[in-house]
């Protein structure tokens, strides 16, 4: 399966919902009135993109097509370009479909450190396994640091993954200081001259100040070994998350300066539309999407593909 097909498969449900509704909604010859627009706004809101973004798209539709008869293709083009505008902004993150590692920042020399954080149960550990697998299949050596010393059996979970993938792992007993695990991970990555170090962290709600401070500490401690680390700090977001995703992005960015999002669990009915709002407000791009439970169900995010897959015919 090619990338596009995978993305499409992952977004099948989303597309079904949007497309069928939209075909019902906008029929050539109808007049685009407020009632139609309001219905359409409802569809957009159901993707979790938030009232503001949905408002923006519908008001642009109203401006350009309001009161006229519907030209399905033209309406589509407007929606699509507006969505693309929302998802893309002017920073330099590259999504090269031929190179699955293209959106990741890379260290000039020595190990590249990827710090992975997120709230509880979004799929951090699974996402780490997927990223590790992706890096490994592209010929990189990897060290994992099992920094989730809080949740019962989280270390075991990552250890199982490391055994399956066959990569190095630094672990300590549960209850140990996660920063010390991260420190040792960094030291080991330097010692082995690994290409990548991926640091797992315990899930934490963004409102817990002490835990967010702990996250900051992890970052500081890694910097003692590798000064410019973490080169990439990824926030894992559950695709089912609603508007709270924005608050998550804000708080985690304050602590570890997120450089990208991993949108997990996109294989369900959820649409992950909150990433549109996050992109718009915070400028943090989605870098990868998780589209299944298998270890290679991780896809490169690509704004055009995302929008096109949403509306593909």
């Amino acid at each position, binding site marked *: 399966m090619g990338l596009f097909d995978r993305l499409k498969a992952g977004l099948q*449900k989303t597309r079904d919902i949007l497309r069928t509704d939209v075909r019902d909604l906008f029929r050539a010859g109808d007049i685009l009135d407020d009632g139609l627009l309001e219905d359409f706004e*409802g569809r957009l*809101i*159901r*993707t*979790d993109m*938030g*009232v503001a973004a949905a408002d923006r798209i519908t008001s642009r539709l109203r401006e350009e097509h309001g009161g006229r008869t519907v030209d399905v293709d033209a309406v589509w083009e407007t929606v699509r370009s507006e969505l693309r505008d929302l998802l893309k902004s002017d920073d330099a993150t590259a999504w090269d479909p031929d190179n699955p590692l293209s959106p990741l920042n890379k260290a000039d020399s020595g190990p590249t450190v990827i710090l992975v954080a997120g*709230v*509880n*149960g*979004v*799929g951090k550990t699974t996402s780490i396994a997927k990223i590790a697998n992706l890096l490994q299949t592209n010929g990189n050596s990897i060290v994992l640091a099992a920094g989730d010393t*809080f*949740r*019962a*059996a*989280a270390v*075991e*979970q990552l250890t*199982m*993954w490391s055994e399956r993938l066959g990569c190095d792992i630094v672990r300590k007993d*549960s209850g140990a200081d996660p920063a010390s695990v991260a420190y040792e991970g960094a030291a080991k990555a330097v010692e082995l001259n690994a290409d990548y170090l991926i640091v797992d962290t315990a899930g934490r*709600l*963004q*409102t*817990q*100040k002490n835990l967010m401070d702990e996250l900051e500490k992890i970052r500081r401690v890694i910097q003692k070994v590798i000064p410019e680390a973490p080169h990439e700090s990824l926030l894992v977001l*559950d*695709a*089912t*998350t*609603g*508007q*709270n*995703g924005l*608050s998550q992005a804000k708080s985690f960015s304050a602590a570890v300066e997120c450089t990208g999002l991993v949108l997990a*669990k996109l*294989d*369900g*009915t*959820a*649409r992950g*539309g*909150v990433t549109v709002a996050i992109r718009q407000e915070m400028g943090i791009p989605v870098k990868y999407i998780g589209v299944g*439970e298998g270890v290679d169900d991780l896809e490169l995010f690509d704004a055009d593909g995302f929008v096109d897959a949403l509306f593909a015919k």
Partner: protein
Amino acid sequence: MFEGITEGLTNAFSAFRGSGKITEGNIRDGMKQVRTALLEADVAFDVAQDFVRNITEQAIGEDVLKSLRPDQQLVGIVHQGLIDLMAGDHTLPLKRDGVTVLMMCGLQGSGKTTTCGKLARLLKEEGHTPMLVAADLQRPAAIEQLKIIGEQVGCPVYHEDPAKSDPVQVCRNGVKQAKAGGSTIVLLDTAGRLGIDEELMKELQRIDNRVAPDMCLFVCDAMTGQDAVNSAKAFNEALELDGVILTKLDGDTRGGAALSVRAVTGVPIKYVGVGEQLDRLEQFHPDRMAGRILGMGDVLSLVEKAQQEFDEDEMLAQQEKMQQGKFTLDDFRKQMRQIKKLGSMREVMKMIPGMGKVVDQMGDMNPEDDMRRIEGIINSMTLDERHNPERIDRGRRNRIASGSGVEPAEVNKLLKDFNSMGKMMQDMSNMSLKDRMKAVKQMSDGGMMDPNANIQEKKIRSKRGPIDSIQLRDKKKKQRKDARKAKKRNRRK
């Protein structure tokens, strides 16, 4: 949050203040605000739409009470509407004798395993003997997690080797074992799955058919957005849910999912998970949830939080000291530290109704910074000075100021504020409740709550104020020039 909806409503209703009745004409804008508030709280679109329609019908024609502004009254109606919608039986009907089997289900990462542990602990405290069954054979290390949790709560965990068993078998054997072992409640921890994953949903149905649990509880992440409807519907259709447990409510999510799930399934929410520790499972309170969805202050939760963090004896001791006027700077510092434990001042203040606006007005002002400075000043005092602040003379004041890196004037101000605060508290603690309320009101009118009253000034390194070297040079130049001119003029005369 609260500001969002009330502000919007105030604007929407500014035109019709005093008109006395809620009519279709003047309610429309207000209802739009309510709808936006609900959608921003992640209430499902259709649910929000229906709710707004019903409330509008209800509210039209209602007389505006004299004591209330129409926006306040509308918020009241909406609030009550939400409570009514979420009300129900929030307890678990357990069998008097025999074994009650509870099945937990939900999406991946919603918190099933942790909730199992929490529920087991709660039931154990109520005098039951629960047993946990590890039926999640999918996620790596899920069985280990349940085993560890079982150990922490002190109840047995039934598990089998995942390679040689399947979930249905584990559940059946688990229930058998529970009956033999004398447990009264069995909690089945099933694997997380997607509502659209038919194969796994069928597996869940097989467990339901073969094991016949007495109750099926849906574990739902409170942060779920619009999708909550879809998954709740799928699980309800497959299993006929009996209750919902809402998890991760300790975050700052508004939790509109509660309303969506309730509206779609019709089953009541039983418990809410409010923390990672195993004792953080609470009864569901529709009134609190309603306030939360609307972004209204959550005073009750604040009070509970305060009770958790504050040491009661300590509080009593301090109160006593206040009454006797023996409240020292040391006690003051202690209290400040306790307040800090509640979280950031902004968050705390947002929980108090009406204070949300103050938080906004504060802008960039950061109460934490102020508190840190004050603590720094107190830290720089000797114990003796803290107990007898009147002993602080000029010399001591300068020492304290340089020790804590502030201006001597700030030390002075702290001492003055502390002094007047002490007097006020002493007066207040001798008042009746009613007088006390009055005094608080006076305080807030008199500038205590005026956010501009105590704005931190920009730190000035030099006593002469900020110096702009270029400006200073030009000024000096001009002075010299003027002086020369004046000299010349005087000579001519």
